[in-house]
């Protein structure tokens, strides 16, 4: 059992070696408890293009060749064999090429083709930066989810959001730095938002989970069943009075007193969160126009729309990393069969809310320094699974897109081969994707390290390059 300040002292020493937080260090040695708050904001390595992230995670693996990467040869060669070898290790067997059942049409100034599955998002193509050459390692959901979220498909490593919280701290002392709205408990579950060996403070705070309707999603213990806020205020006043007395009577050295001080502060923060969280989740103050913008007036889009709208509200209040997961207790976007029906339904659930989020962020001036990320854990094969209407997992090439936060708008980076199987041009491994995201946040992925088990760990392990071409 050690006082928190000891931990942070080492962390800060570590960080100051990286150019972080020299001021915090002096503060801490002088025993200023406030400086020991691990959530306090920190300066990035270099100029940040984005200050926060909203990560829209499409669980199950949306098909890139049916959504955002148009493949004319796939349409032409429907029913023919893939003219080159499939990977040795696949999740399941697939057959010949399967043309996309959806039409693609050019949109916006940039003329990028988007399928009719995403009519609303398509109107935003001039703000989107498509990464068509994403590739990962693992063709199973669990491994791929972990890879995308933590950079490792089998080891327990900190989540991307935890790394960002560790690197940049929080901009709002009343809220956690990393919130994840309705995350899935399957396929790695909590490891996908965990802190692993980073101090647990940086772990994502889950609100509800994927099996719970967004309107029911809450941070644990945020409400009391036993008393009113007024009664609690009386309690906290007495508690503080007692704690102050206790502190005054005991040792006053910085380590010993700092630990007491930060525990006193954490009760106050908890008290504030009790009102700030429900207030942020209470969407009744939003105008009808805003609710419609996010599709909250339609049962199909209500749930994801609510998640997106909450994400905007959290981002607005300075939560550093908000993840929104599109998933219920059935695996989404995972159409080994029933592709037409499944993808039509899934896309309908998210299309309007995502477009609404982009519109809203832009209108509020938030898009400039908010990085919106859209991705699944992998894409789907251009070859058919089953007979006519399914696609298998495809980690060898898929599409993610970014918006806002310093990325080139209306831009396309990389490409898969003519049929969409393998990332081919400007290949972007998940590590590269992470390196690029950190870069946009002003963090050098090679310098954001944490010493554990005798060595320095990174989100990007020993690889990763920054896709500089996408920087605005």
């Amino acid at each position, binding site marked *: 059992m050690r006082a928190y300040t000891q931990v942070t002292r080492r962390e800060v020493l570590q960080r100051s070696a990286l150019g972080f937080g020299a001021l915090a260090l002096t503060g801490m040695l002088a025993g200023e408890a406030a400086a020991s708050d691990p959530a306090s904001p920190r300066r990035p390595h270099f100029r940040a293009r984005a200050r926060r992230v909203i990560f829209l995670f499409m669980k199950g693996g949306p098909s890139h060749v049916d959504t955002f990467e148009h493949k004319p040869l796939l349409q032409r060669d429907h029913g023919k064999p893939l003219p080159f070898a499939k990977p040795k290790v696949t*999740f399941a067997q697939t057959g010949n090429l399967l043309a996309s059942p959806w039409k693609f049409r050019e949109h916006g100034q940039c003329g990028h083709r988007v399928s009719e599955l995403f009519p609303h998002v398509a109107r935003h193509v001039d703000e989107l930066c498509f990464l068509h050459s994403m590739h990962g390692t693992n063709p199973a959901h669990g491994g791929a989810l972990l890879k995308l979220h933590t950079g490792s498909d089998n080891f327990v490593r900190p989540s991307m959001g935890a790394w960002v919280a560790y690197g940049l701290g929080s901009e709002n002392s009343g809220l956690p730095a990393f919130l994840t709205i309705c995350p899935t408990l399957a396929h790695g579950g909590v490891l996908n938002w965990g802190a692993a060996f980073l101090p647990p403070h940086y772990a994502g705070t889950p609100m509800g989970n994927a099996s719970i309707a967004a309107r029911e999603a809450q941070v644990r213990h945020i409400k009391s069943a036993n008393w009113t806020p007024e009664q609690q205020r009386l309690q906290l006043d007495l508690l503080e009075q007692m704690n102050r007395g206790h502190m005054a009577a005991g040792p006053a050295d910085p380590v010993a007193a700092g630990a007491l001080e930060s525990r006193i502060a954490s009760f106050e923060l908890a008290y504030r969160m009790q009102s700030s969280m429900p207030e942020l989740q209470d969407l009744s103050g939003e105008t009808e126009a805003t609710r419609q913008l996010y599709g909250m007036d339609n049962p199909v889009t209500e749930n994801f729309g609510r998640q997106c709208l909450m994400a905007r509200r959290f981002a607005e209040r300075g939560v550093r990393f908000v993840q929104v997961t599109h998933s219920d207790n059935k695996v989404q976007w995972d159409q080994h069969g029933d592709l037409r029906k499944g993808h039509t339904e899934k896309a309908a659930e998210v299309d309007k809310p995502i477009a609404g989020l982009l519109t809203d962020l832009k209108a509020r001036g938030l898009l400039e320094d908010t990085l919106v990320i859209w991705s699944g854990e992998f894409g789907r094969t251009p070859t058919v699974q089953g007979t006519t209407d399914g696609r298998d997992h495809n980690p060898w090439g898929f599409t993610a897109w970014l918006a806002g936060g310093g990325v080139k708008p209306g831009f396309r980076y990389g490409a898969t081969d003519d049929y969409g199987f393998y990332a081919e041009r400007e290949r972007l491994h998940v590590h590269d994707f992470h390196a690029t995201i950190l870069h946009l946040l002003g963090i050098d992925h090679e310098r954001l390290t944490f010493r554990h088990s005798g060595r320095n760990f990174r989100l990007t392990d020993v690889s990763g390059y920054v896709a500089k071409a996408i920087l605005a």
Partner: protein
Amino acid sequence: MNRAIQTARLLLGSALLAGCAAPSPLPAPVGKSHWAFQPVQPTRPPQVRDAAWLRNPVDAFILARLEQHQLPPAARADKGTLLRRVTMDLTGLPPTPAELDAFLADASPDAYDKVVDRLLSSPRYGERWGRYWLDVARYSDTKGYVYAREERFWVHAHTYRDWVIRALNEDLPYDQFLLLQLAADQAAPQDLKAQAAMGFLTLGRRFLGVTHDIIDDRIDTVTRGMLGLTVSCARCHDHKYDPIPTQDYYSLYGIFHNSVEHLISLDPAPAKTEIYAAFEKEYQTKWKAFAAAQSLRREESAARARSRAGEYMAAQLNLSQFPEEGFDQILTTKDLIPAFVRRWRDFLAGRAREHDPVFGLWHHLRTVSPADIERATAAYWSESSRAAKRTNARIRAAFATAPRSMAEAAQRYGAVFVEVDAQWKAALSASRPQGAASLAALADFDAEEIRRILYAPDSPCVVPATGMANNEQFFETDVIEALWKLQGEADRVLLRAAGAPPHALVLRDGPPEPLPRVLIRGKASTLGDEVNRQFLSALAGPNPKPFLQGSGRLELARAIAHADNPLTARVAVNRIWRHHFGAGLVRTPSDLGTRAEPPSHPELLDWLAGWFVTQGWSQKKLHRLIVLSAAYQQSGMEHAKARAVDPENRLLSHFPRQRLDYEALRDSILFTSGELDLQMGGRPVTLHTEPFTARRAVYGLVDRQFVPELLRVFDFANPDMHCPQRSSTMVPQQSLFLLNSPFVAARARALAAKVARENPDGGASSRAARVRSLYRALYLREPTASQLAAGVEFLAVQEPGPAAPARVVPVEWQYGYGEYNATSQRVVQFKPLPHFTGDAWQGSGTYPDAKYGWLKLTADAGHPGNDRAHAVVRRWVAPVDAAVSIAGVVAHSAAPGDGIRAFIVSSRHGVLLTRSLHNSQAAADLARVEVTRGDTLDFVVDIGGTLSHDDFQWAPKIQTLPTAPARLWDALADFGGPPTQPLQMLNPLEAYVHVLLLSNEFAFVE
């Protein structure tokens, strides 16, 4: 290069680099001269000026350093502080007011010594300090992510936990403690109970069955946990800082690779009770089903491998095409199994001697260029060659003409194997009618030589006879899944049956294996040099001796638990010191390597390590020594000079304040409220769901895959890997839990009730008495005048507000499961479904749930559980005496599968209605049913015969018949979640107790 290979390479390339991040450029390694690798130095307590302060030799080391810095030690802590400190420290629980009174009243000079002895002999000691070791051992009751393939709960974890607690309570010497955890199978084969110790190795994360990662976890836990060395860094490259070459890692790797898991019962002669007999019957049935299936599959897989032996040889020409072991491969009977490819690789490497009668030619041809194969074959057979004479006749015949390529050579070998296999099978069936004892060999020498390659125990075609954990990679994917399912069913009997005896998952040495080889950059596909199984070179001296007994695990255990090992005792005393003082003499308890900061008191560390060994590795003696020292008994008040000279208190000029960890805080709250349940041992209990258990936290379920958020926010050790020391953070979620959880509120109520009982009346006169009583119970002291006044004022002024109206939820409906018993015509074993999603009642947030399967009920539909014992039950409890009618339609609408069965069952009258449905629907109406208050009507659905497409719709309505006041219960309209608790305001006393439980004075030890 074709694209597939390219892709496979890319995939493989990144797979194992994970976890081997190379740190930035480094200074030259200090190497073996590093202090921690030197023998423990015999040191003598130094001379000090203020000898009167010393209570034992420990103090001389502490005081000498303080005197060097002209820092006086702090005064002795007062008795109350000291009693709370040492009691919390040794038992994880606070003392009682009665214990305080006794201690205060005891004026004898050894009053404190007596307290220490009492605490060390309390079973609470093992529970407290055992938990520290469980952090070291990355204890979990579950396996981590297992891909819904195998049972995710370990059947043996709690027996390991209980062994640890018992070992500490019995003060098992630490060297034995380590030895048994690494090699009880060989160090104490007769001691059945001690076998549980090997859970240390076997209860790690399963890493989806990937052997390399399981072994890595074991190496990491052993070396960081017992030796304070980060050996797993050397998996991919030589350690960047410490003298740990990659070869060392693979020396240990070979030891664990040659160790095979076995599940054993720890009760050799269980009492033949009825309950045991029931267990035994069920378990044997399930176990035999698994064993028979596995045996059959092993034979099938081996037969296929024999028939394709030529292809496996051809595969050697193109090894990179065969992926490393990984859970993500989908293999069918069409595929060559990569595990067999690797077995052939190792087998051929073992037969690479010159003139091997069967494979000599193969190895010879592999050394020449493709163009030279024909010429080389001829040369091999040339008159002068001794090879020709030695070579197996079948091979000689097959290669009478030269092959044109290695692929063709592989084919010809394959043909020989198939031919001999056929010959053997013919011989077997020919021998059978004669009733002869089974044939042991072929008569023909050459044929027999070939047969052995296919059938001998070390044949590359044979699937090892082990449990699934060690041989699953030799099966096709669907077979693996089917076998794990059967194994899981047997596991679940062990996990759940009331009469199941404790089991241990032990390691035993496997059959002899070739020497391990370095995997270059940690990749299983790139083999480096052979290494011996032996101890770490930095610790084994200049000429390390290879381990020669079996896997070498016992020799490894002895080398670790050896008095001359420079690290083991240092690491142990440093860990123990750290828990007493909040920080170790070396502040990185699991890394004493060259990157660790030097010890604050190097001579003390060595003195303690030496003393510990000479005292028979007794941990209790070490605790006693430390807590009886003057250093430990100091007050927490720092000297004014200390802040400038030693701001971090590394010199221990005063006692460091420490915050209670999660277990100590939770257990102390339960203890002071008088509710703590001191039952020891057994299966884990769920800590965080209502109704809350009052067991100690150490017996709580640790599920590494779903570590409850509460444990994470309270800095619980991450059970996925060895945890050197927990963080000690302060996050608002901790405060939210303390402020708002029903758990803490209930404890406040319990303690308030106790205090109210002891100080009845409640009027003004008793308020001061209550405040005093609470201060004694929680803080072991009297309140100050102002504290007393504040407390009395709080009790007097604070009144509960009006209770908010509760949401009205019809309580008549219950949502659960059970079994429909046709004989008794009743639902037996009805239990409620535990989780409400907002739309459905089911097993948990995950659907289907590992334990509850597909059980689910929504407002108007549902799904039965996985077998007939898990029918889904919508239960209605009659709130009044009445006659009711029932209306509804049951529907099953899926063509596949075999449908469902539906029943309406009355607790009074038995079954009232039965329907079997398959892609059909039927009315489920009853005109009149008499019920008495408390009777139940169950709307039961179970599977038709097999679990497949069993969704159904059914929303019954129950209406009182006109004779009674009309009431309607509509399953659809009434459906809802757990009844919302009405706001239950704390009364002033409860609210006050709650504040006291939240205070820093309670949460810290001074």
